[in-house]
């Protein structure tokens, strides 16, 4: 028969693919025979007929179902796998529990972390034009080589961009946060909002609930308010409040006017960095404030809409030097440049280091992501280790399956299935645990996280998690166990291969390296936080209450102070233009003898009264304190950093001017921390030129705090009865600055404990298994006179080596991680090698205790028991 007379390949292959196995042989034979007959008469027709015949065979009864040939066996196998998995789980309850507990703890913990991460990553992501909005930032290059970055952009720069930059579609201005009194009738509340450009609501996707359809944010004396604010004043009728008026106390325009509500927006979601309850048109403010038209004055936050990402580079290049170009004639102007930053990245990447974006919260998000994946990995390793270590238990089963014809694939899939089942169960249990723990976790992180079980994505995630974890934990057992030889397996004496033992030990080392790393990391974070919170700030923040002075109270400071000082518990009172430990009001126009005219200097200015230094417990290192406001109104105190910056040999009695005030330096105060520890201490001028600029009263108290607080409230209320008493403790304010760090340190601590807990669960399983395996050996040793201690030493010796190894491996990683985290702080603790040792020791002790607790049972067993079943 010539080659040509064989039937066409492709239809034949099709037939072989779809035809039932038991029918295939003779069907194919029949077709071939037919083909051969036909081929003899008409080869071309034979081929067509053949194809036709194959296609006609594609019918029920001949086509195999997707698994039809195997279905019965397959179902039976799966049923058998399930049954065996279940029986094994029940039989070795302890191990199942260990596995399950480890997985549940790991999965639940990482699910919580993932919820937190997805919240963090979701902040500011709801704006439709989010990736087209760029915020302008201003870098002020200072004489000492540092760069201060500000979001307040001179308005002329924004105007220039709007007029001359074709690539920029919109320029949106937004003022700093306004705290205005808003009243309906006699119901008066303080609210936060902004002056904004008319295109604000088109640029940012804040949803409007009601509006009167007019151009909003254009006309003066109109406002857009939040649903919350509307409900507060109009109760159930809030929806119809459009067109009604509220009285707004505009402290910047010094007006108190009725303002018409023209729109109501949905309450700003928590995941927005812009938070406000009302918006006022910026126009009236701009018209009345000529200072905003100066290139030297940073005024509004400025956002640009640029739809083409390529254009953003063009704009960034062009805008860079605009300020310097336009302030060439001004000698006092500093060296300032403008940069662009994508708005939707602002939340996570918000740290400017010398004018360049250097991370921010993203560092913590990344850190937690790594921790979450490590926790999952550690939990998976438990499963791997326990199931391979205990494989001898199942070796007979594996052997028997092989004798009965099971292929490697079938045994692999059995172990995969078991891993999947267990992880699936663990995931389900974890969801329960997460739901249970979420309220506590929310209090911890101060957020409203939700596990949305109605969202499809949650289920995709959970399913994916099960698959990935199942595959990960099942992979090694599924690859290793089927390779056992049949006879060895049946005899139950599978020689444990060196590689698998090493691999298992390697995994244990990995687990404990991670745990040690986390423990060392946590102690370092704790140490740094402790340092930060207890550091001598150069002023006394304890027992100081900061009270907000509203309305015209700053004009009546002397009588207010006198009233307060009459309270026996009040030691002293001072006022200031802001919280002295978190201060940021500055000038670049300060001038002094010998100032380098080409260098920019951003110097902080705090306006206080004569009691400031004494009340805050600050130290004068040279010269003298203010004696009285009247005498010293044009005398200044500076801090040591400022003295150094100005470069005086002896700063006392040197001339200094800023804001049009001219005077002399009379004293130098010891540096105090006026900003958080991430940043260096900035130069500062302290003046008592006009204390009525101040809006904070700082009250140093002693004695029974609640009582004093009540008395202070009473006094304050007698001066400004229409305002709520607004106060804070200075040390609270200080601690609040480190909320993120404290949160991270708490989270890190919790997860370090989790990781060591999960690792120890696995270790416990391994230790009890090896103790069991060696029970006969131990029996014999005991018969020959070995003592319990010796046996314990023997059993824990192996593991001690592993622990020491993991400690050694973790050192360089821990050192590197700790150093890069601490580098974010200008003021930080030294990395103490003892801490490493401590972390290692803690892990070691916990691990060895785990091993010993199990070994002890075996070591104290009567040798008769362990030897008699020989």
């Amino acid at each position: 028969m010539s080659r040509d007379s064989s039937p066409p390949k492709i239809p034949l292959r099709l037939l072989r693919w779809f035809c039932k196995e038991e029918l295939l042989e003779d069907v194919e034979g029949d077709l071939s025979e037919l083909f051969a007959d036909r081929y003899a008469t008409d080869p071309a027709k034979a081929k067509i007929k053949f194809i036709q015949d194959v296609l006609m065979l594609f019918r029920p009864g001949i086509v195999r179902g997707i698994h039809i040939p195997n279905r019965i066996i397959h179902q039976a196998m799966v049923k058998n796998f399930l049954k065996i998995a279940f029986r094994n789980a029940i039989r070795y309850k302890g191990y199942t529990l260990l596995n399950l507990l480890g997985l549940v703890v790991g999965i639940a913990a990482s699910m919580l972390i993932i919820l937190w991460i997805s919240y963090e990553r979701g902040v500011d992501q709801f704006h439709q034009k989010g990736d087209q909005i760029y915020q302008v930032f201003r870098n002020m290059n200072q004489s000492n080589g540092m760069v201060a970055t500000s979001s307040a952009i001179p308005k002329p720069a924004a105007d220039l961009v709007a007029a001359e930059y074709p690539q920029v579609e919109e320029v949106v201005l937004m003022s700093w946060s306004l705290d205005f009194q808003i009243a309906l009738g006699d119901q008066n509340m303080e609210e936060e909002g902004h002056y904004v450009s008319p295109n604000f609501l088109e640029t940012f996707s804040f949803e409007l609930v009601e509006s009167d359809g007019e151009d909003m944010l254009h006309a003066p004396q109109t406002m857009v308010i939040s649903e919350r604010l509307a409900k507060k004043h109009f109760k159930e009728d809030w929806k119809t409040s459009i067109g009604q008026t509220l009285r707004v106390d505009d402290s910047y325009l010094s007006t108190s006017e009725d303002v018409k509500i023209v729109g109501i927006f949905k309450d700003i979601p928590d995941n927005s960095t812009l938070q406000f309850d009302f918006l006022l048109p910026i126009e009236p403010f701009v018209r009345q404030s000529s200072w905003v038209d100066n290139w030297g004055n940073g005024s509004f936050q400025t956002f640009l809409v640029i739809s083409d990402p390529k254009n953003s580079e063009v704009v960034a290049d062009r805008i860079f030097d605009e300020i310097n170009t336009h302030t060439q004639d001004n000698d006092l102007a500093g060296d300032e440049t403008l940069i662009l930053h994508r708005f939707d990245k602002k939340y996570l990447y918000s740290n400017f280091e010398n004018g360049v974006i250097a991370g921010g919260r993203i560092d913590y998000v990344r850190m937690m992501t790594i921790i979450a994946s490590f926790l999952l990995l550690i939990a998976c390793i438990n499963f791997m280790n326990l199931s391979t270590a205990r494989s001898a238990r199942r070796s007979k089963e594996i052997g028997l399956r092989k004798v009965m014809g099971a292929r490697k694939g079938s045994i692999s899939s059995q172990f995969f299935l078991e891993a999947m089942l267990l992880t699936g169960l663990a995931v389900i249990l974890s969801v329960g645990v997460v739901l249970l723990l979420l309220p506590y976790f929310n209090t911890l992180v101060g957020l409203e996280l939700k596990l949305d079980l109605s969202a499809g994505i949650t289920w995709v995630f959970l399913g994916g998690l099960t698959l990935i974890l199942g595959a990960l934990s099942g992979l090694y057992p599924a690859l290793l166990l089927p390779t056992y030889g049949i006879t060895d397996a049946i005899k139950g004496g599978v020689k444990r291969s060196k590689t698998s033992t090493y691999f298992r030990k390697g995994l244990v080392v990995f687990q404990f390296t991670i745990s040690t790393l986390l423990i060392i990391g946590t102690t370092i974070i704790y140490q740094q936080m402790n340092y930060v919170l207890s550091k001598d700030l150069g002023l006394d923040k304890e027992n100081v209450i900061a009270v907000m002075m509203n309305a015209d109270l700053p004009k009546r400071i002397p009588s207010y102070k006198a009233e307060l000082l009459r309270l026996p518990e009040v030691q002293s009172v001072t006022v200031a233009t802001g919280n002295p430990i978190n201060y940021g009001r500055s000038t670049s126009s300060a001038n002094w003898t010998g100032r380098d005219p080409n260098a920019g200097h951003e110097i902080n200015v705090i306006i206080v009264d004569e009691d400031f230094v004494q009340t805050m417990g600050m130290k004068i290192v040279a010269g003298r304190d203010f004696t009285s406001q009247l005498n010293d109104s044009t005398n200044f105190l500076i801090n040591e950093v400022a003295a150094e910056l100005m470069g005086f040999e002896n700063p006392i009695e040197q001339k200094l001017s800023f804001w049009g005030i001219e005077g002399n330096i009379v004293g130098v105060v010891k540096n105090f921390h006026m900003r958080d520890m991430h940043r260096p201490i900035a130069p500062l001028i302290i003046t008592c030129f006009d204390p009525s600029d101040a809006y904070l009263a700082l009250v140093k108290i002693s004695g029974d705090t609640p009582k004093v607080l009540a008395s202070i409230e009473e006094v304050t209320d007698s001066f400004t009865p229409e305002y709520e008493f607004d106060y804070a403790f200075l040390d609270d304010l200080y601690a609040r600055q480190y909320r993120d760090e404290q949160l991270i340190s708490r989270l890190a601590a919790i997860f370090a404990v989790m990781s060591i807990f999960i690792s120890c669960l696995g270790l416990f399983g391994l230790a009890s298994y090896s103790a069991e395996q060696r029970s006969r050996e131990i029996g014999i040793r005991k018969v020959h006179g070995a003592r319990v201690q010796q046996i314990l030493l023997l059993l824990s010796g192996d593991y001690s080596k592993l622990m020491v190894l993991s400690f050694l491996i973790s050192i360089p990683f821990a050192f590197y991680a700790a150093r890069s985290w601490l580098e974010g702080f200008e003021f930080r603790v030294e990395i103490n090698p003892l801490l490493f040792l401590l972390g290692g020791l803690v892990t070691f002790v916990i691990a060895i205790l785990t091993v010993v607790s199990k070994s002890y049972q075996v070591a104290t067993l009567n040798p008769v028991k362990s030897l008699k079943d020989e």
Partner: protein
Amino acid sequence: MGKYAIGEFEEIVLLTVAILYENAYGISIKEEIESRLDRKVSVGAMRTALDRLEKKGFLVSEFGEATAQRGGKRKRFFKVTPAGKKALEENMDARKKLWAAIPPIAFEFKFS
């Protein structure tokens, strides 16, 4: 009829298998039907019928020799079982009974 129910095509296939006796396999059955009854039979239809009949227990099959003409594939030979024979008989009986019940006048077409 009950458990001996077979369709018209199945009946033909079953009868042909009986006719061919020891040489009843796919192609021979197909060709036998085609030559005797002058109708086209597709391999697919026949295969399904044979398969069904075998499942019902009216046919048994066994593999024969492989031939080069069949690309090295063996023939599957079919044989009618006693149940198959019974089914054919029941079928025939049923027809006979029906024929017998027809009144002679029914086929008197002269005056219609």
